């Protein structure tokens, strides 16, 4: 089953076969003895290919031809021990080797300039698009009717492929284009499509990426995480994706970046030239990238890229921070986005404050929350910073990313090489018994035993009208439905109680997988 919106070769080939394009006989295996068995079943010469999204797989030693099952076993063992790019190899495709007469390069891509699909076609064989740039034909694809047969025939006429095979080649190419449209691929590359010595037309390789935004319409593809990543989804990326799926208010995008070649590698700071690994929390796609550049320029290495934007709830920002802080070896937490947001920035401040407080953050955090409500956002972060070991600084829209990156570097310097070790959140003692009510994917707890008159007044005053007094204690004032999605207001309430040194409210917002 594909884990992300990029498919492995064998997954793409299964789709090609379903669309009427011939593929070599074979199957993926996960250990050497399976490889031997598959080679025995296929008989004769077979090819073993690592399943990884890397370019130039053959040049990296990821493809082997063998003659016997024993050799297949040996080759599979070697291939499964490889590491290519960001990939630990888990699967090897074993297929019958073909006797190839002609190779074609066939690729359906999206042409951003034409705002239309395009077919890249080279019928002169060879491998590697760079080497053949001159002989690749760019054929327009109509989004409704596909590619024109006469255009395909024109390309084939000038190729060394014998005319008797042209009909079948055209049919296969049309099927590839139809498949790309049918499963809404962002790209579908068959390199090569071959004509065998026996005259069959077969897809020998397949690279395919499905449009993230269309995955919801394609349950048949069984894509677990609709994200385009250059590696199989990590544990944290799975948790993050789950959070995004459970709550569609605002955007939450999270990807781990390669550290020493592998995303999600813990504790690898201090490597050549790096001033340390950081947790990165952006807001807005462009603003996040701009902020990433500003902090990277100072020599820090991002453990992850993250973007919470589009008015996310405090609960969503909190969960994002929790996932960022599930990474080992961080020297600091850097948050910065577009800087001039039209949304109220204190919701994000409350979410971050809750995560930092619960984890008793002990590495520096620099957060720039520019835009409406920024003064309140900065005050919240400052007050929570005073209650925990970490140095926390909040900044506004008039502080540039380069300026706050410098402040961050100073704080990291002063922290004397402190590194973050992920830890469990602290949950107050009153959680588990006493007054509570459920909200979507969470529970709100109130410590009624410590609710004297001023505390009750404080709680109700900060509850955005969600709570009322009952026998001197704060209780829910609205229906279960009306409070279900009010995590922003409830997280604000929890943090306001903390700021007032009366921590009697706790919003339990577990992160699936982490808690």
């Amino acid at each position, binding site marked *: 089953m594909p884990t992300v919106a990029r498919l492995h070769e064998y997954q793409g080939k299964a789709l090609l076969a379903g669309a009427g394009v011939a593929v070599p006989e074979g199957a993926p295996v996960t250990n050497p003895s399976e490889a031997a068995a598959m080679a025995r079943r296929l008989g004769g010469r077979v090819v073993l290919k690592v399943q990884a*999204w890397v370019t130039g797989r053959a040049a990296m030693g990821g493809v082997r031809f063998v003659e016997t099952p024993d050799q297949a076993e040996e080759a599979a063992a070697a291939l499964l021990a490889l590491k290519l790019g960001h990939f630990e190899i888990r699967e090897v495709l074993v297929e019958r080797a073909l006797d190839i007469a002609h190779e074609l390069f066939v690729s359906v891509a*999206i042409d*951003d*300039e034409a*705002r*239309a*699909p395009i077919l890249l076609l080279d019928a002169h064989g060879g491998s590697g*698009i760079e080497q053949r740039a001159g002989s690749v034909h760019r054929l327009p694809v*109509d*989004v*409704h009717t596909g590619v024109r047969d006469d255009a395909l025939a024109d390309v084939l006429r000038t190729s060394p492929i014998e005319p008797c095979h042209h009909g079948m080649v055209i049919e296969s190419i049309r099927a590839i284009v139809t498949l790309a*449209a049918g499963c*809404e691929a*962002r*790209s579908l590359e068959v390199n090569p499509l071959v004509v065998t010595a026996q005259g069959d037309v077969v897809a020998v390789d397949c690279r395919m990426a499905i*449009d*993230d*935004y*269309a995955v*919801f*319409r394609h349950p048949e593809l069984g894509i677990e995480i609709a994200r*385009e*990543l*250059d590696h199989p989804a990590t544990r944290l990326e799975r948790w993050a994706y789950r959070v995004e799926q459970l709550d569609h208010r605002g*955007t939450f*995008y999270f*990807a781990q*970046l*390669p550290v020493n070649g592998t995303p999600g590698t813990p504790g690898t700071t201090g490597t050549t030239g790096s001033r340390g690994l950081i947790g990165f929390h952006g*807001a*807005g*796609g*462009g*603003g*996040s*990238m*701009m902020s*990433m*550049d*500003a902090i*990277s*320029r100072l020599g820090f290495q*991002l453990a992850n*890229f993250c973007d919470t934007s*589009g008015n996310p709830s405090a609960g969503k920002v909190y969960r994002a921070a929790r996932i960022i802080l599930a990474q080992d070896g961080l020297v600091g937490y850097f948050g910065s*986005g*577009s*800087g*001039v*947001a*039209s*949304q109220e920035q204190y919701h994000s401040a409350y979410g971050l404050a809750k995560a930092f407080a619960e984890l008793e953050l002990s590495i520096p955090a620099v957060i720039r929350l*520019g835009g*409406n409500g920024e003064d309140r956002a900065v005050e919240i972060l400052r007050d929570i910073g005073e209650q925990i070991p970490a140095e926390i600084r909040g900044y506004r*829209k*008039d502080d*540039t*990313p*380069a*300026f706050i990156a410098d402040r961050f570097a100073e704080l990291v310097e002063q922290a004397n090489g402190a590194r973050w070790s992920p830890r469990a959140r602290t949950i107050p003692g009153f959680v588990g018994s006493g007054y509570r009510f459920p909200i979507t994917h969470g529970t709100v707890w109130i410590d009624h035993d410590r609710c004297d008159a001023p505390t009750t007044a404080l709680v109700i005053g900060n509850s955005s009208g969600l709570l009322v007094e009952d026998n001197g204690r704060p209780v829910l004032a609205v229906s279960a439905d009306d409070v279900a999605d009010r995590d922003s207001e409830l997280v604000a309430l929890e943090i306001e109680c903390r700021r007032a040194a009366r921590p009697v409210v706790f919003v339990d917002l577990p992160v699936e997988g982490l808690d």
Partner: protein
Amino acid sequence: MIIIDQTRRVLVQGITGREGRARTRLMREYGTTVVAGCTPGKGGQDVESIPVFDRVAEAVQSVGRIDVSVLFVPAKLVKVAAIDAIRAGVKLLVLVPDRVPVWDAMEIAAEAATHGASFVGPNTLGVLSPGRAVLGMIGGRAESAREWFNEPIDGRTVGVVSRSGGMTSSCGYYLSRAGVGLSTLVHVGGDSVIGLAIPDVAAMFQQDPETDAIVVFGEIGGSQEERLAAMMTRGHVTKPVIAYVGGAAATEGTRFSHAGAIIEGGRGTHAGKVEALTAAGATVVESFGELPAKTLEVLTQLQPAASDP
């Protein structure tokens, strides 16, 4: 000014939804002339005393000419709604929703081409001409937008075109603080297939007498920045271009939030874009913080040339 001012007659599709309703009010408060709304099945209702119709063609028939339609409908309904507007003769669409499937965007593009229409987005915050009108949701509250964005200033006015919504506002805000005037802010949208792209918008700014220079917020992925560079080289864009390109630290093969922000097969890299723009004569800043001062510098150098007949 390009694309929008108070004289253009605007339709809102999805006007009865939460977002559509709220944004219609904000657009009006800023000066936009909203003449009708459209939500299938809600024809006959009013939103903020704006008449609502089932189909765009009915709206046109009832209220007369419609210049622009702004869409606040769920992503999966954007295609149907956009085609409805295009077939009713609307020549400019603003597709606000995020997560519109790319094959839907290509169908919209094909339909628009057939009917001579164009569109901004998908995944756009919209277009804002300071002091005049706004399409979409740039600036949020009308008073914030008035406070943040300068109106055009004689001889010191730029047009802003950006691939990032948040950074469209940021560019407008920081440029205004630096004393630069703004003709129009355009967020082209973060997707890989969009309607008006950076080069198209730059061509519009080139024709706009109010615009003295063009500020670009670019990103990794796709070819918009390279195509702008090619237009400059060919002499189709001669006004000064000041640009920042995000994603210097981006790695290949991972999407950086925006659907269009991905380096694939060595194409769409930060270095490639910076090189193309620089070679074409654009002023490219390495750090975003340098953008306002650099822009002012370029505009100041322009002054004597501008007064020279």
